[in-house]
């Protein structure tokens, strides 16, 4: 076998837990060379990050245990190397960029200090380290590079923090950079910028890049080769194009099929009576305008998608309608009554009619209540809906409706996967028989395949029960599949509103166009073409 710069051979790692042993990765092998980008594609729980943790000696043992394999870096088996040898490689020859840079940067030290530290621990003199830190900040395109060195991580935006992480990884001009979901929490436009930066740097320095991701679009954008992981094993490997067009493994095929944004777009609904009409809603926090003159209409059984980047005010709209926050001015007419000024007694009745599904199902389900209690709480609060005798039966019904089994009612939230939990949250919303469900990033945290299933479920509910949705999302392909109308928001105001076709095919506003252009297509060819077009 030819020598590679970094090679993982037959690596198996397992973890000891209460439920016994979990094999995190099994017999995994891959390699990467200078100047090349390897993507490791997998959903949560696939074990895609474990091998990189093993490379950098980041697995806690116990409870972790490496049962077999070797990791060869430049001929040295890292797994048998000493602690000190590995420490010298970390950061200097192999560097890592983590997901969620906020928690991965030390909150109590300045960015400059953290940047210099990586050089100082690898014996770069202080003065040189300081000079190089400034260069790095410039290189990653940080505005005001000098001032930023004395700032702390919390003073930067998400995209800027990821640039800092990248600068830190570059500091010692490593041979390999491992990037673990480097763009996951970022807005699409920022994601595009970060990926562009990584690509440029790679071209410039000729380093090997290992990119761990769940996003086919990211793979299509940057990868030279890709390995697909599922349940701790590599199921398939090849170039992105090979994988996308000629996937052999059923799992890969399923994954590709689940990628959103390919189906027919919904035709606009026939004209009808407005169920909800929001007029000139405003909300400010001090000088910051979270909602600036927002108006829109929603008809019965219709899906209105609200899209925009973080801070655009799309969640604020939902909270204002639900009276979780109080709007400063404007009206929200629900069947002719103004939600913003509704007295609390009427509000109670309104709660039946408008429900919400939250982004993070782990957070939105009370961990100390059983599924039965969670769903039936609706009827405890609104006893007129259902006599107690029928609760059990109805819970079973609802669980079946959202694709779960009736005997799940006895269990607790932590015993379910993320997708299942979101189904439970939907069942809870349905228990009140609402006419409108506001879904706030309801599928964003889910894996692609599960995302598709949940969207399918929502579409079914819309179809069969005639429920209207306000669907808040930052992920445009999902919106494209599900929405009837789309409202694009930026900085608290409505940029553009129209049918899904209007927005996706003939966007009127430059902002909307930018947003659409920044999105990544899972098809490598399409994506390549699009990149060329943008360039």
């Amino acid at each position, binding site marked *: 076998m030819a020598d590679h710069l970094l090679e993982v051979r037959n690596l198996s790692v397992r973890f000891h837990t209460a439920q016994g042993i979990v094999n995190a990765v099994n017999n995994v092998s891959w390699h990467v060379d200078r100047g090349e980008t390897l993507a490791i594609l997998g959903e949560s729980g696939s074990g895609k990050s474990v091998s990189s943790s093993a490379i950098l000696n980041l697995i806690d043992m116990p409870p972790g245990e490496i049962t077999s394999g070797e990791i060869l870096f430049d001929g040295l088996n890292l797994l048998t190397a000493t602690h000190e040898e590995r420490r010298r490689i970390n950061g200097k020859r192999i560097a890592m960029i*983590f997901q969620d840079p906020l928690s991965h940067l030390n909150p109590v030290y300045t960015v400059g200090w953290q940047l210099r530290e990586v050089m100082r621990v690898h014996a770069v003199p202080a003065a040189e380290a300081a000079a190089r830190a400034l260069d790095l900040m410039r290189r990653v395109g940080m505005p005001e590079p000098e001032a930023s060195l004395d700032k702390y991580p919390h003073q930067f935006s998400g995209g800027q923090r990821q640039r800092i992480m990248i600068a830190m990884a570059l500091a010692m001009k490593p041979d390999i950079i491992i990037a673990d979901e480097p763009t996951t929490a970022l807005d699409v436009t920022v994601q595009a910028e970060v990926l562009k930066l990584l690509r440029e740097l790679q071209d410039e320095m000729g380093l090997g890049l290992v990119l761990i991701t769940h996003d086919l679009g990211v793979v299509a954008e940057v990868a030279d080769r890709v390995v697909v992981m599922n349940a701790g094993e590599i199921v398939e490997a090849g170039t992105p194009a090979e994988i996308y067009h000629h996937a052999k493994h059923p799992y890969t095929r399923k994954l590709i099929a689940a990628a959103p944004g390919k189906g027919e777009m919904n035709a606009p609904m026939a004209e009808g009576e407005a169920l909800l009409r929001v007029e000139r809603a405003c909300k400010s926090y001090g000088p910051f305008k979270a909602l600036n003159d927002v108006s829109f209409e929603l008809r019965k059984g219709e899906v209105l998608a609200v899209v925009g980047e973080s801070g655009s005010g799309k969640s604020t709209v939902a909270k204002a309608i639900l009276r979780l926050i109080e709007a400063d001015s404007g009206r929200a007419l629900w069947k002719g009554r103004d939600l913003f000024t509704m007295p609390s007694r009427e509000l109670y009745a309104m709660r039946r009619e408008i429900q919400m599904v939250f982004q993070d199902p782990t957070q939105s389900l009370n961990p100390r209540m059983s599924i039965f209690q969670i769903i039936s709480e609706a009827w405890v609060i609104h006893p007129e809906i259902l006599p107690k005798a029928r609760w059990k039966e109805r819970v079973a019904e609802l669980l079946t409706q959202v694709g779960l089994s009736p005997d799940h009612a006895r269990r607790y939230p932590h015993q379910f996967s993320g997708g299942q939990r979101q189904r439970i949250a939907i069942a809870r919303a349905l228990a009140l028989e609402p006419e409108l469900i506001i879904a706030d990033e309801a599928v964003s945290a889910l894996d692609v395949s599960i995302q598709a299933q949940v969207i399918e479920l929502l579409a079914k509910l819309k179809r069969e029960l005639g429920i209207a949705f306000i669907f808040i999302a930052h992920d445009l392909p999902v919106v494209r599949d599900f929405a009837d109308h789309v409202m694009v928001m930026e900085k608290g105001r409505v940029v553009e509103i129209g049918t899904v076709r209007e927005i996706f095919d003939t966007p009127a506003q430059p902002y909307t166009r930018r947003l659409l252009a920044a999105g990544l297509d899972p098809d490598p060819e399409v994506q390549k073409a699009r990149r060329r077009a943008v360039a």
Partner: protein
Amino acid sequence: MPRYASRIISSFASLVLLLVMVFFLSRLTGDPAALFLPDDATPQMIEQFRELHGLNDPMIVQFGRYVWDVLHLNFGDSLRQARPAIEVVTQAFVWTLWLALITMALVTAAAVVIGSLAAFRPGGIFDRIVTFTSLIGASAPDFWVAIVGITVFAIGLGWLPTSGTGTVWHWILPIAVLFIRPFGLILQVVRGSMVSAFGSAYVKTARAKGVRDRSIIFVHTLRNAMLPVITVVGDQAAALLNGAVVVETIFGFPGVGKLMIDSILNRDFNVILAAIMVTAIAIFVMNLLIDLAYALLDPRIRT
């Protein structure tokens, strides 16, 4: 800064409320005249004493007079000592302040170092031994520890003076006794805080950067882990500033704790009030310092 202004105002309000409550409640607990004068004092003497100290007036009049005096920065005289209560208290408070400061400095230093090392390998031998011994120490009644300490180190071994003040040596036993309980507590907090800090994402980053273990413990993790520790240190220091009654009593240490219990038992109201006021102010100042330390350690709080 307006944040501090409102803090000062609300703390001042609490202090006033506290003093008002103490003023009235303490006067419900009996007559200082009977305690000051001998058993066989004549009724005239008692009457005279009460008259002289204004104890015969209706409570509300006494209160009015006290408020008036306090507004003129006069905190009254001690019933027992025939000198200004504030003087009695400040004299005692200096001792308590030193005792508390030295003890807390030692406790914090020791707990931070030992706790951090224990946390590096949770469940390891060092961790177990440290946790267990510190818990035993913290579980023993302090008067018991104090007397055993005197018996062993002063009487048995003759290394240290039994009690009193004077030389540095006199401070060792009282501080050692006071040390034990906060040490056990703060050690646990340091340890817990360090254990969870070791699990933080930025530690992973540091390891990925190739930072040495020592530096991970004492540079990366410790500063983050200190935040909850500081809170506990503050609470414990506040408890010490309120006076270490038992230790002061046993070691004949003229601190505010002993003064407080004596004044309470003698119903020396002005001294009680002055002592509460001085300690409350000291604790307030200390809390400000703690806030400052917080801001110093954690830039997120500064803004």
